[in-house]
């Protein structure tokens, strides 16, 4: 059980300007008591991994609506593992077809949340995962 403050990085990888969902989630997580670091749009996987390291986050949340998730997400996971952050919870939201979600989970993404997911579901998922860690 983690006693300390939970820190979450919310990032938008790739050339994707749809930032509404990411901002909604960032605010909802703040209101749930998390410390949320928002990096903005147009982040490369390298930038996201570097931010995750410097910020020592417990959770990395990616938001992708551009369709580029199959290349971007596994790269982020790979970089996190390579730098010693194997234990970071990686979440993905946006427009992700079911069959892609399954493959991404096999590649190390812990959970995928599509349009219409409520903030409460996401908050409860993170709390449960952190309590078990």
């Amino acid at each position, binding site marked *: 059980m*983690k*006693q*300390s*403050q939970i*820190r979450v990085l919310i990032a938008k990888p790739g050339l994707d300007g749809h930032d509404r969902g990411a901002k909604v989630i*960032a*605010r909802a*997580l*703040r*209101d*749930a*008591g*998390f*410390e*949320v*670091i*928002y*990096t*903005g749009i147009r*982040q*490369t996987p*390298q*930038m996201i991994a*570097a*931010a995750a*390291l*410097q*910020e*020592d986050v*417990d959770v990395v949340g990616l938001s992708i609506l551009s369709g580029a998730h199959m290349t971007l997400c596994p790269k982020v996971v790979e970089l996190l593992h390579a*730098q*010693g*952050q194997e*234990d970071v919870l990686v979440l993905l939201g946006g427009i992700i077809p079911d069959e892609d979600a399954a493959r991404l989970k096999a590649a190390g993404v812990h959970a995928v949340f599509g349009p219409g997911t409520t903030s409460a579901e996401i908050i409860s998922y993170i709390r449960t995962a*952190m309590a078990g*860690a």
Partner: protein
Amino acid sequence: MPKPVPTQQLIDSLLRGDRLALARAISCVEDDAKDAAEIVRAVFAHTGKAHFIGITGAPGTGKSTLVSALVESYRASGVTVGVLAVDPTSPFSGGALLGDRVRMTSHSGDAGVFIRSMATRRGAGGLAKASAEAMLLLDAAGFDCVLVETVGAGQAEIEIASVADTVVVVEAPGLGDEVQAIKAGLLEIADIFAVNKADRAGAARTVAALEMMLETGGAAAQSIMHHGQRMETGAAASESDAEGGWSIPVLETVAVSGGGVAQLRDALERHSAWLDESGGRAEREGRRLDHMLQTLVQAEVLARLERGLAPALRGELVELMQRRQIDPYSAAADVIRKLSR
């Protein structure tokens, strides 16, 4: 959840410059983890080298953008930079949305730059309680220069004057007729003024207003000092600085394009040199360490007080007093005896 790393190993890695170790050490001091004291104790002998620069000013004046431009300038001359970017914790949820990093993304991939966002948590005065400790850790990890962005300063966010070697107050034109720094009481803590967004109309007017305030400001600063409670911070500093002959520059910058940043950098170097010549460096370090001492003692005393004055114990004592078995003074003495354990 990070796997627990033995504290000694974390300390060794941090001193070798390992970035993940540094990041985790900062989390330890932020969380007040039990290893925090051990870490600070072990690295303290390796500190005392970095130049600590505070960047403060009203919300939205361009502090983060200016920090990013300064980082670029420092990196161009091979100086390594640590950044602490502080944003407020929501008093309602205890959470925080830390957005300063959005303006600082261009340094990703540069191992000579380390950027850390920090929520104020229970800290006051525009910084977090752990800010000064995190500054020490960045120093110990070998960064030549540490830039600390405070929360957008409103009323009395002048804590930065107690921990920085150099304070840059950022202004922007068009925030209303009155210069924001004067309203926010920042005039007394500035070593350098940066009038940012100088690409906008009204910058020259803001510069002129500030320069006029500084010319007539000696008296104002003194009276604030004599009536204020915080003798150890800005006002006192500006008085002794005036004796040492530092005249506060007012510079125009355009952080988004890098305009005027070379001049700001030059002013920072001059202030650093002046600190060395005038003895101001040692004075400010003393102030910073005194501030840390006070913060740590206050936190511990408060924690003990919370424990010592637990409702259950108080209830017990109140009952005894009601039965006239103990008097209020003796009850208080009883609590205080327990606190010092």
